[in-house]
């Protein structure tokens, strides 16, 4: 029975996934296990899937295995979908790689606005999104805090560099949240996790065009009576591919060669342009 349901679920989300991707559909590249072939466990899932249970209570997959930043990249929406054993609630958390961020604050000096204050924070995730199948506050209020953090709770864990008064720190923390939200990196409302037929769920994860690279982590939790009964984590690599990747890699690893290449390109283009212009 469970096997059958899973096959049905995979079939359903396959259709839903193709729908959500809109016109720029790429071949899914074998990300979706063929119904009935892969068995009950997704063979491509990382080892964080609880192995001891032969029939997992929570199975997830992503509509794409990675976010590819190509020359035509304008941001992307990735669908996370899966199935769980009812009853329960599903929470999905996406975390980008952590790094140090420096927040700068403007102040009016002689009528001009310029940056006067700055504060660095460590452990700042590049991206953070959280969604649940029920209002998040209600779920988190029941004592799963610590493991699952709302955006605000996560922000309170970023470590300030150096010392500063707490009210000032709070302001800079607020500023960090504000800028990240504006850039679409901490999407405030990615919408609820939608549940169908009591056990199938799906949620869209929006990624803006200005997206830091790295390996993101997409985690799904199954909650029952305020306790985590199952958790699945999938890595989601975000990176430039093709021409963009080559250029950026070149600029990163060999700035001198890249600089010379840029000059050569400009010399050639300018010479050619000039030659064409004289003919006109």
């Amino acid at each position, binding site marked *: 029975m469970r096997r059958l349901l899973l096959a049905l679920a995979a079939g359903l989300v396959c259709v839903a996934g193709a729908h959500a991707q809109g016109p720029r559909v790429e071949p899914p590249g074998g990300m979706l296990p063929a119904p009935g072939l892969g068995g009950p466990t997704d063979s491509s899932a990382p080892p964080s899937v609880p192995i001891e249970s032969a029939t997992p209570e929570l199975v997830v997959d992503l509509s794409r295995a990675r976010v590819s*930043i190509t020359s035509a990249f304008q941001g992307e929406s990735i669908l996370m979908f899966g199935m769980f054993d009812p009853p329960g609630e599903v929470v999905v958390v996406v975390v980008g790689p952590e790094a*140090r961020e420096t927040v700068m604050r403007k102040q009016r000096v002689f009528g001009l606005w310029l940056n006067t204050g700055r504060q660095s924070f460590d452990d700042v995730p590049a991206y953070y999104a959280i969604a649940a199948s029920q209002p998040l506050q209600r779920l988190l209020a029941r004592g799963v805090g610590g493991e699952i953090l709302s955006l605000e709770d996560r922000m309170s864990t970023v470590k300030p560099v150096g010392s500063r008064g707490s009210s000032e720190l709070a302001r800079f923390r607020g500023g960090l949240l504000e800028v990240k939200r504006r850039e679409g990196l901490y999407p405030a409302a990615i919408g609820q996790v939608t549940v169908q037929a009591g056990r199938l769920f799906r949620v869209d994860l929006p990624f803006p065009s200005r997206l830091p690279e790295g390996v993101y982590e997409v985690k799904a939790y199954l909650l029952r009576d305020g306790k985590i009964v199952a958790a699945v984590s999938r890595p989601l690599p975000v990176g430039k591919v093709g021409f963009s990747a080559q250029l950026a890699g070149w*600029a990163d690893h060999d*700035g001198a060669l890249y*600089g010379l290449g840029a000059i050569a390109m*400009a010399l050639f283009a300018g*010479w050619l342009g*000039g030659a064409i212009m004289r003919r006109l």
Partner: protein
Amino acid sequence: MEIYLPIAEQSMNVFVLLGLGAAAGLLAGMFGVGGGFLATPLLIFVGIPPAVAVASQANQVVANSVSSLQVHWRRGNVDLRMGMVLLLGGMFGSSAGVWLFTYLKSIGQIDFVIAVLYVIMLSTIGLLMLVESLSTYVKRRRNPGAPRGKLHTHYLVHRLPLKLRFYKSKLYISALLPVGLGFLIGILSAILGVGGGFVLVPAMIYLLGMPTAVVIGTSNFQILFVAANVTFLQATTNGTVDVVLALLLILGGVVGAPIGSRLAAKLPGVVLRGLMSVLILAVAVELLTELLRTPSSLFSLGTREVQP
């Protein structure tokens, strides 16, 4: 049509960038200056980070000056000796400028400094041009046959040591002045992503007393190497040169420049300069309002760093 700029790390409309390049090319064709001084602020207006805008614009200046230099070189309008002396200062100036740029970026003040320098520079040049073109216009109407002013005046230039003979420019002046001038233009070039022709050309005419015929070619000679130096140093120290962005600007410029030179042939010089000064002043005013207006958000982020 959107294109992802790999160094700016954001997507941008191709036609906006081509249009910007064309506008700069139009100016280049009309006035014989690079147009970078308008392209860079406009790039910043459309949302390119200032550091990337400046560095990529320097790359564009390389292309711009090489196509202009071709013409002047063939006509023999380059004073190579003067160009070398200017370049000596220019190389030091641009290197110092990139260093200063990197420092200002690290303390989070580069955007502000770029904006302030542009406001000062554009408003000064715009006002001078406006006054000059208006007064010329008025004078011509009143007194069409007025004699021109003195061609050659002797200033401080002639009293400084290290005098050098510049045959092509018919000058015997101290090398210190062109070296110093090159140095200043180099700094400007590195921080603002401009060739600096619009400052260099008047300075060569009025300050050094060079004959107008060789001024544009010689300034292009110096600008070519200074811009190449800035591109190289920005790529190695800050990694902010976006070749895709630069290439789009160059392509736009190739289209814009011939249109500009045709326009220039049709309109009288006074009108052209008047129009240009109004355009420059408009950009200066816009930049100044950005500095004065209460920003929509007080906060911004610096570059992401790997945690120590």
